[in-house]
């Protein structure tokens, strides 16, 4: 570097000598000294640039230049604070929206789950394609089969969700808790280490020896005050003593909210029936096995099982099968379409913001042409000038990114409050290093993107021309205006795209809310009860409890009717099972080989008390409802929904038909226990408003179902004349009056349940509408900017026109026409793009076609109005041009 410094120090001298020699040569060739010197100078070229380039050879000059450019850029931006603020704010909105949505995408879709080596984890499922069961849990015998044939899997483990228990302690009132059960190896396999205590040992996961419990972090804090010495303390679950072995980490969940975990205690010697599917199976692929191979071994195993147990899987070829889903996909796959649409939307918003800032820069560039021309004349290379301009736009981009981060921080907090509580991984959403890198990258890209427009413009135009024309201030306005108009057209097109997307979601959402769930949602209070097996061992006490309770609840003032059902619609609890038919003429459904080849189908099954239909106001279509007389001693009966009636007996002769779900106990050979259909009721949207769901069948709660005599877990449905939440306490008192140790849980009005069930589409809608509005506002600002610029550029022209007799209305009309042309072009391009792109969001739509003419029409109207409004101020200014002043301006 010392050599370099010496060389540079001598450079001036060297160049002077060089030119001197050339001059001398020229003089010797006969030129006058003056001409000789000029010729030498010309031949040498631009001295300043040569020095610059030579210096560049040596040093980290680019750093020096960069610092210089940055200093200069900051100075330039400080000199026009209005411009800088507008640009930075616009960019911040775009980058902030991108950062917020990306932080969600990153946390939910991109980042691996917090399990050990999570990419190799899969969930294993069964399915009965022809019975209409596309995904089914695994039964205990199937689990043992999997363990015996785990060529592709390093580990296979099982857990069960959805249990409930009453947690009782001496020193506190009982609470209802959700209980999950697991084999001992699930948690170690996932790499979950308890924050207190330890995981279950294999000895604790044995049949009849499984009274141990792991607490969730939340339960530990809420019920045990975060007691660090909790291990080995006893608690009572449904009246049985359990010993606490540890507390699980705060974030741990296997889908849904579990209050505590107990060992499964599976008994390989005495497994439950092969048809009782209730286990979630999680497995880890062997390191050298890929998912295709593993999936193939599952298909093979399923085929072997079909052949080995035709009684369980039916003779139907390829009805039963097994498959696997990566654990992450299982958890968050359903969120992907919405998140990707939102990510697309914010990218479009950012593009609009970029176009706006590019527009601002172009307007400024025209004003700066003279400055740039002078700097070029003084020896700044074109690359150097472009670099200077790019440095400025990068500075703007980074400043926008910084402010965008602040906006994103608020946005993410707001988002966390808005998302439905059952959304997986939302607690992992944060502005982490990955997001920061993303924002930094986006800021740079943004700066580069909108900075390239004016730079490209500069590179294209001859600066000498600018210098000679700069004085007139109209130099390249025509070309600039052209470019700017195209930017605005693109902005409008993007805004149209977003508006169409938002419009489609609004229409879908309205359609969704218009869907009748099949019952009356207002004035309906619901709560769940789980009767513990210990105190309610069989059917009689369970029935007695609910009969007494419902009779008592009905006497509460303001309650019109009260019923109970085993699975309430829209409450995230469902069950289905095979229903077989006495009528063997039903076509096109599978048959039961071990039960007289009877036709059967998977149907949603419910147990209901007699007043359930009145309380829900599910309409009776034919026959009768269930009533008090339908008890164990009476004829076994059932009520089906209209979908059931139409599907199996389209001719309508459904009443009196007999169906079964089980066989007469201890009958040999197995004989169907027939139940007579006595009524048809309306179909209920059980899963969600936009899901039709399976056919439904209701059995009286007081008649035997399978081995179980009256389900213990029931949900009360209480119809009130007033605000339903006012009777909550009265009902709770009635419950405690019968059983002090029985807390009701999941207390909610039906309106709340409906609202929760549409929370996800509502959030998608709100976000997309917000982004569309932002896009529209930015695009409107763009239109305003370019029209205002055009009007200013043409003050002279308008002056002449007015002087020649054009009325203000004529001028107004002309400006509006030009604005209208931009709007029409943007609208046309946007609508074409929308027709193509909205197909990608088809999975988010409900009851609306992606090319819904109503939405497209409304968007067109809105855009036209906004565009014209944006033209109004510039147009009025043009109309008011005073010809005298305008002409003097020249």
């Amino acid at each position, binding site marked *: 570097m010392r*050599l*370099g410094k010496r*060389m540079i120090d*001598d*450079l001036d001298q*060297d*160049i002077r*000598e*060089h030119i*001197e*020699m*050339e001059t*001398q*040569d020229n003089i010797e060739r006969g030129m006058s000294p003056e001409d000789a010197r000029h010729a030498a100078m*010309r*031949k*040498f*070229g*631009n*001295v300043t*640039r*040569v020095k610059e*380039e*030579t210096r*560049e*050879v*040596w040093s980290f000059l680019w750093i020096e230049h960069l610092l210089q450019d940055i200093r200069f850029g900051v100075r330039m931006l400080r000199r026009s604070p209005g411009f800088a603020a507008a640009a930075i704010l616009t960019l911040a909105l775009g980058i902030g929206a991108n950062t917020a949505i990306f932080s969600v995408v990153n946390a939910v879709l991109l980042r691996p789950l917090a399990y050990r080596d999570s990419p190799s984890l899969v969930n294993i499922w069964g399915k009965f394609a022809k019975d209409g069961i596309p995904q089914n849990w695994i039964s205990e015998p199937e689990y043992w089969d999997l363990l015996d044939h785990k060529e592709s899997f390093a580990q296979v483990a099982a857990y069960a969700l959805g249990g409930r228990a009453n947690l009782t302690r001496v020193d506190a009132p009982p609470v209802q808790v959700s209980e999950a059960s697991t084999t001992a190896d699930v948690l170690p396999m996932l790499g979950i280490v308890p924050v207190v205590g330890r995981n279950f040992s294999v000895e604790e996961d044995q049949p009849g020896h499984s009274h141990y419990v792991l607490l969730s972090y939340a339960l530990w804090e809420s019920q045990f005050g975060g007691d660090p010495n909790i291990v080995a303390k006893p608690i009572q679950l449904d009246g049985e003593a359990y010993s606490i072995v540890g507390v699980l980490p705060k974030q741990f969940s296997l889908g849904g909210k579990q209050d505590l975990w107990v060992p499964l205690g599976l008994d390989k010697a005495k497994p439950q029936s092969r048809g009782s599917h209730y286990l979630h199976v999680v497995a880890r692929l062997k390191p050298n096995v890929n998912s295709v191979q593993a999936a193939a071994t599952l298909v093979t195993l399923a085929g072997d099982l079909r052949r080995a147990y035709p009684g369980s899987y039916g003779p139907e070829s390829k009805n039963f099968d097994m498959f696997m889903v990566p654990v992450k996909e299982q958890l968050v796959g359903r969120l992907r379409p919405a998140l990707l649409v939102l990510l697309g939307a914010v990218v479009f918003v950012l593009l609009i913001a970029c176009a706006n800032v590019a527009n601002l820069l172009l307007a400024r560039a025209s004003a700066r042409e003279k400055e740039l021309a002078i700097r070029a004349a003084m020896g700044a290379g074109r690359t150097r000038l472009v670099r200077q301009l790019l440095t400025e736009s990068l500075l703007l981009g980074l400043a926008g990114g910084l402010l965008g981060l602040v906006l994103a921080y608020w946005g993410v907090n707001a988002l966390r409050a808005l998302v439905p509580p059952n959304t997986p991984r939302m607690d992992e959403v944060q502005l982490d290093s990955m997001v920061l890198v993303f924002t930094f990258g986006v800021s740079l890209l943004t700066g580069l993107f909108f900075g390239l427009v004016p730079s490209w413009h500069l590179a294209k135009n001859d600066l000498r021309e600018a210098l000679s024309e700069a004085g007139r201030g109209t130099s390249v306005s025509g070309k600039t205006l052209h470019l700017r108009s195209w930017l605005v057209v693109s902005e409008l097109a993007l805004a149209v795209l977003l508006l169409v997307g938002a419009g489609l979601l609004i229409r879908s959402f309205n359609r969704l809310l218009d869907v009748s769930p099949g019952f009356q949602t207002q004035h309906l209070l619901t709560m769940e009860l789980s009767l513990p097996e210990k105190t309610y061992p069989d059917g009689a006490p369970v029935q007695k409890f609910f009969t007494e309770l419902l009779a008592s609840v009905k006497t509460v003032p303001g309650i019109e009717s009260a019923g109970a059902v085993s699975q309430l619609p829209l409450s995230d609890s469902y069950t289905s099972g095979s229903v077989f038919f006495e009528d063997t003429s039903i076509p096109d459904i599978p048959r039961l080989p071990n039960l007289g080849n009877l036709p059967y189908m998977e149907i949603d099954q419910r147990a209901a008390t007699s007043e359930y239909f009145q309380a829900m106001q599910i309409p009776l279509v034919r026959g009768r409802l269930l009533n008090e007389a339908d008890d164990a001693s009476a004829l076994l009966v059932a009520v089906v929904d209209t979908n059931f009636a139409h599907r199996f007996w389209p001719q309508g002769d459904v009443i009196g038909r007999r169906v079964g779900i089980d066989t007469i106990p201890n009958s040999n050979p197995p004989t169907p226990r027939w139940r007579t259909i006595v009524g048809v009721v309306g179909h209920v949207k059980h899963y969600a408003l936009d899901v039709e769901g399976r056919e439904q069948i209701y059995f009286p709660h007081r008649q035997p179902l399978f081995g179980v005599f009256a389900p213990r877990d029931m949900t009360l449905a209480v119809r009130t004349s007033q605000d339903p939440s006012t009777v909550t306490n009265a009902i709770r008192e009635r419950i405690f009056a019968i059983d002090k140790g029985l807390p009701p849980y999941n207390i909610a009005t039906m309106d709340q349940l409906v609202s929760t069930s549409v929370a996800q589409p509502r959030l998608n809608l709100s976000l997309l509408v917000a982004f569309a509005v932002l896009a529209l506002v930015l695009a409107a600002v763009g239109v305003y900017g370019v029209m205002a610029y055009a009007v200013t550029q043409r003050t002279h022209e308008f002056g002449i026109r007015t002087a020649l007799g054009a009325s203000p209305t004529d001028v107004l009309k002309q400006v509006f026409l030009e604005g209208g042309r931009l709007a029409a072009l943007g609208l046309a391009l946007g609508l074409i793009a929308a027709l193509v792109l909205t197909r990608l969001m088809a999975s988010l739509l409900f009851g609306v076609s992606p090319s819904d003419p109503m939405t497209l029409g409304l968007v067109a109207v809105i855009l036209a109005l906004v565009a014209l409004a944006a033209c109004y101020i510039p147009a009025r200014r043009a109309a008011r041009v005073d010809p005298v002043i305008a002409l003097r301006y020249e």
Partner: protein
Amino acid sequence: MSTKEQRKRIELLQGTLDLLILRTLVLGPAHGHAIAKAIEFNSDDVLQVEQGSLYPALHRLIKRGWISAEEGTSENNRRAKFYRLTAKGRRQLAVETTKWDKLAGAIAQILRPAEQGDKS
């Protein structure tokens, strides 16, 4: 200066200037002006370099250690910097020359069939 005349001249390919400088210095140390003159003279004035662009190139070569610079006096007794080819520069010249020959050969090979096509 007449732009027409300039257009007849061939613009230097990127990097060829380095090669020309090295080649010129094979004949012995020279100062900047002499190098410029030599390049112009030896190419019958077809290759015309903006003389200033010589300096970044010279400095680049010095930085790479292919030439060195020393103080001296010119033929008409002016103080001037003389540039001298180093051993490393001599080796580099051989490498660059081979490279250039290959490139020129390859380009000629591409162009020749086209000419034949024109004739037939």
